[in-house]
């Protein structure tokens, strides 16, 4: 049984311009100890998906099953045990820590809210955790603004792990950090995964970070998963033209002054194109793509793509 399984999840918002379909029919599973990468550009709904899984946003429909229990049905009060087992690490280390609280308070509060241990036990756990994430004990009496971005992200990781979760959703955890700091945080996350036997849903817009970090990768476009494969397969043989464009768009010295892989802008999630969502930008789209939305189909073991022309490199002749 997978640790987390999401089935046909929809999260829609009402906006002045209509219904914003941020997550629009996503299914996925995460096994115990697995690191699943979720990649996509802004507005694709990857962050909303993460927040919906954690019930920080309520889904419009669909199921989120964690360890056999449907967490969508749980009332707010009954969420407590789930909150202990599923946690989140945020993108912006400047806004994700309360500027008015000391690090000690930030780390102790989750324990006392969930009634874990007595005062001494909490103190012991907090101290162990802060050292585990590579910060000196003297950090505890300090406030977030006294730390650099990378150090704050370490505090954010400590806070997410203090309750001993099984699943951690990392929402762009390194994209606000400088390159020289990114590696430190990625390495720390890997150590934590090993030490605490964590499962990750690792959300990022940066394919190269995902490439390093994920066992399996989901590619999202406008609220849907368009391709899903084990990391190595995805890099070696991307089936969806969008995945291919993403890979080719990574700046790379071996492609000196090459033209951009695809043109056009991402459509607004309030106004999703009919048929295949990607067809207005797709280099290999045909008439069927404007009419019928392709389903996520298995093309090779463990490798799914939602494309009428999956794997083709050029536009097939129209029938």
């Amino acid at each position, binding site marked *: 049984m997978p640790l987390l399984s999401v089935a046909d999840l929809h999260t829609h918002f009402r906006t002045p311009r209509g219904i914003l379909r941020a997550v629009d029919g996503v299914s996925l599973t995460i096994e115990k100890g697995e*690191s699943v990468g979720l990649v996509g*550009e*802004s507005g694709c709904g990857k962050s909303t998906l993460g927040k919906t899984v954690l019930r920080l946003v309520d889904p419009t429909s669909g199921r989120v099953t964690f360890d056999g229990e449907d967490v969508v049905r749980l009332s707010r009060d009954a969420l407590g045990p789930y909150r202990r087992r599923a946690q989140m690490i945020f993108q912006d280390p400047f806004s994700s820590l309360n500027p008015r609280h000391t690090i000690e308070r930030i780390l102790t509060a989750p324990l006392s809210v969930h009634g874990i241990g007595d005062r001494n036990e909490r103190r012991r756990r907090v101290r162990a955790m802060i050292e585990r994430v590579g910060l000196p004990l003297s950090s505890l009496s300090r406030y977030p603004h006294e730390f*650099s971005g*990378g*150090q704050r992200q370490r505090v954010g990781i400590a806070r997410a792990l203090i309750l001993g979760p099984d699943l951690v959703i990392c929402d762009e955890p390194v994209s606000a950090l*400088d*390159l*020289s*700091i*990114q*590696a*430190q945080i*990625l*390495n720390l996350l*890997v*150590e934590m*995964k090993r030490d605490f036997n964590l499962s990750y849903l690792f959300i990022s*817009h*940066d*394919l*190269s*970070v995902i*490439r*390093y*970090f994920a*066992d399996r990768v989901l590619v999202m476009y406008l609220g849907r998963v368009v391709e899903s494969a084990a*990391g190595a397969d995805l*890099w070696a043989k991307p089936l969806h033209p969008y995945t291919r*464009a*993403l890979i*080719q*768009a*990574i*700046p*790379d*010295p*071996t*492609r*000196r*002054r*090459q*033209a*951009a*892989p*695809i*043109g056009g*802008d*991402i459509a607004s999630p309030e106004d999703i194109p009919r048929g295949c969502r990607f067809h207005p930008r797709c280099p290999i789209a045909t008439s069927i793509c404007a009419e019928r939305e392709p389903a996520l189909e298995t093309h090779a073991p463990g490798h799914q793509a939602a494309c009428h022309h999956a794997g083709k490199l050029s536009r097939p002749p129209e029938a």
Partner: protein
Amino acid sequence: MTAPLLDVSNLTIRFPTGTPVADLGFAVGEGETVAVVGESGSGKSLTALAIMRLLPRTARTTSGGIRFQGRDLLALPEPEMRRVRGRKIAMIFQEPMTSLNPVLTIGKQIAEVLRLHEGLSSEAARKRSIQLLDLVRVADPHLRVDDFPHRLSGGMRQRAMIAMAVACGPKLLIADEPTTALDVTIQAQVLDLLDRLRRELGMALVLITHDLGIVGQWADRVVVMYAGRGAEEADATRLLDDPLHPYTRGLLAASPRLDARLHYTAGPLREIPGSIASALGEPGCPFVPRCPMALPTCRTKPPPLEEIRPGRLIACPPTLALERADAAAVGR
């Protein structure tokens, strides 16, 4: 060799609170793309603003000169300098979302620069704005010209910024992290556009970025900055193939993007320990606190950029010594 288009020498920027840029020098030739690379706090954006003379009032700039087409920009009276800005040297910024005035249409903002520098009538300026929007590949330019910025996507706004920047055919375009706020597929389009315009309009491009991938793909030459100082300067491809400065080497090793073989199951990424904050108050080389090969002499005074081979400069005496010893060994 003819004089370069832009020649910055010994640039130092002081604020009451500190000196974020010290002793920086580099040159940009006609039609060349020079990347200035560094992480936040390296002083790369301040350097760009210093060239434009747009630093905050509290900043003091001292320099051996910022020579542009042979004239020292720092010595120009302000009205003279205004005739350079937007006409000879243009600049685009990181945040296309906030860099356009929200209450003026795109067309009016482009026309403004044309009317100012070329004295066009408002009608002619409008026509030219539509052409410029077409030049930067904005679809339906005759409609978009009357749009307010908030109606456009980030990529489109950055295109509008570029249209505004190239309106008067500048000889130099400074692009300060032009794609950092954009998605990766849009980033590729914008960089592609910038490079095409550089060729078609015959301008030089100073590309300020933190992304070594961008440098490798689009730049001719690159200046690596660390904590306000030049660390290394080289041809872009040469630098990526064979980085010399320990900071550049660390950055390349720590960067997951350039090597597909890296995977967490295969072992950790190489880290640069510590952070750039450690450079504060360092009397010697600012990288010393994080450097694996620092010698006691590195702590005494900041190393100058020294030429090791033609077109290749580094500010690291230990590396320099090693390289020279190697070269001598080969020569013998």
